[in-house]
């Protein structure tokens, strides 16, 4: 009988634990935190994209600057050649002038491209800074919300922890085979593993058993001095108390 009563008390604790866990789970603060975390993930993805964009944009800028410098160097060399007086051939001088003109145009185009790329990098940097600021703001808000959740949910969590400890101590008092049977029933039967026979009704599934089945359960319990049976309807553990509670 002692085992049966302990099991029923354990079942009560389990229901209370489930209720508190649900309350904790459904706290508006928790929902808000989960929503914010979802948003943070989106901002992080955006920030990663912005970083990738900036890497590419900076690489392009460096390439353009290198190409610009190379054209400039080439231009300087050719100009030096043209002004050194080493070349006197009219045709060669004409060719040099054309080459210098072409290099000047190339340099101008490169400078324009470089300027555009610089503007692109600046705009990207501004956007990346805004994204990073939003991310930092969201993280700060998250920390604040977690603190509020901990403060408000702290009492619930404390009670939940205490009940869990109480439950563990209680479970240790129940013989392992019965506890295993209870846990299996609980897992299979939506969190409720044990009921009592009230009159001829199972207190959990609320199905009224045929009078002879209820009587047989009572007689079995009396004969074996073991009040622990099984509900023929829902197959949960059914405790048959002598006073019919």
């Amino acid at each position, binding site marked *: 009988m002692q085992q049966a009563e302990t099991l029923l008390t354990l079942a009560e604790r389990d229901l209370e634990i489930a209720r508190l866990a649900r309350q904790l789970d459904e706290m508006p603060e928790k929902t808000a935190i989960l929503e914010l975390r979802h948003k943070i993930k989106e901002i992080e993805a955006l920030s990663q994209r912005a970083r990738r964009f900036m890497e590419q944009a900076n690489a392009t800028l460096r390439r353009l600057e290198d190409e610009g410098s190379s054209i400039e160097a080439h231009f300087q060399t050719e100009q030096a050649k043209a002004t050194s007086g080493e070349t006197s051939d009219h045709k060669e001088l004409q060719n040099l002038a054309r080459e210098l003109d072409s290099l000047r145009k190339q340099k101008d185009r490169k400078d324009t491209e470089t300027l555009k790329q610089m503007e692109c990098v600046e705009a990207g940097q501004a956007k990346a800074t805004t994204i990073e600021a939003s991310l930092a703001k969201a993280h700060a808000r998250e920390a604040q919300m977690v603190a509020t959740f901990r403060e408000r949910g702290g009492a619930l969590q404390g009670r939940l922890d205490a009940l869990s400890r109480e439950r563990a101590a209680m479970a240790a008092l129940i013989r392992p085979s019965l506890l295993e049977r209870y846990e299996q029933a609980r897992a299979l039967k*939506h969190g409720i593993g044990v009921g009592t026979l009230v009159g001829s009704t199972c207190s*959990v599934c609320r199905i009224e058993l045929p009078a002879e089945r209820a009587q047989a359960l009572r007689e079995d319990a009396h004969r074996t001095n073991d009040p622990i049976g099984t509900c023929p309807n829902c197959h949960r553990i059914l405790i048959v108390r002598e006073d019919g509670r």
Partner: protein
Amino acid sequence: MKRATLYTDGGARGNPGPAGIGFVLVSEAGDELAAAGRYLGETTNNVAEYEALLAGLCAARAVGADELLVRADSELVVKQMRGEYRVKHPNLKPLFVRAQELVRGFALVRFEHVRRAENARADGLANDAMDCQGDVGTWKAEPDGASRCQQSLWEVS
């Protein structure tokens, strides 16, 4: 003319599974006339939703409401009661018939589908009933209204 709003919710943990109902009856002035939850044993979600409606309608009748706005988060129940869906399931038919009988006792009943968040109180009562495997709630009807209401509620089953 006594107008009221009825919020109902029924739920089962598992389908079927341990089930409960909850309802809240609110007067036109916003006073809570009745609020209760009840454990049903093992049944389906839809049966629980209908049981919640029946219990709420009985409570509304007991407090003398004659114009009722029923707000439920079960689209099935709302649409079936409005005649937009047919009732095919044999387990739901008798409950639907009983609900229609009760509806005929009022001058006017309107059904409105609401989101779960707007039905939090009834949902909470249904969950509390499931948690304690028993009846929960308070009744704030006129002094002798409570017993009549309670009786009406229990006679539904």
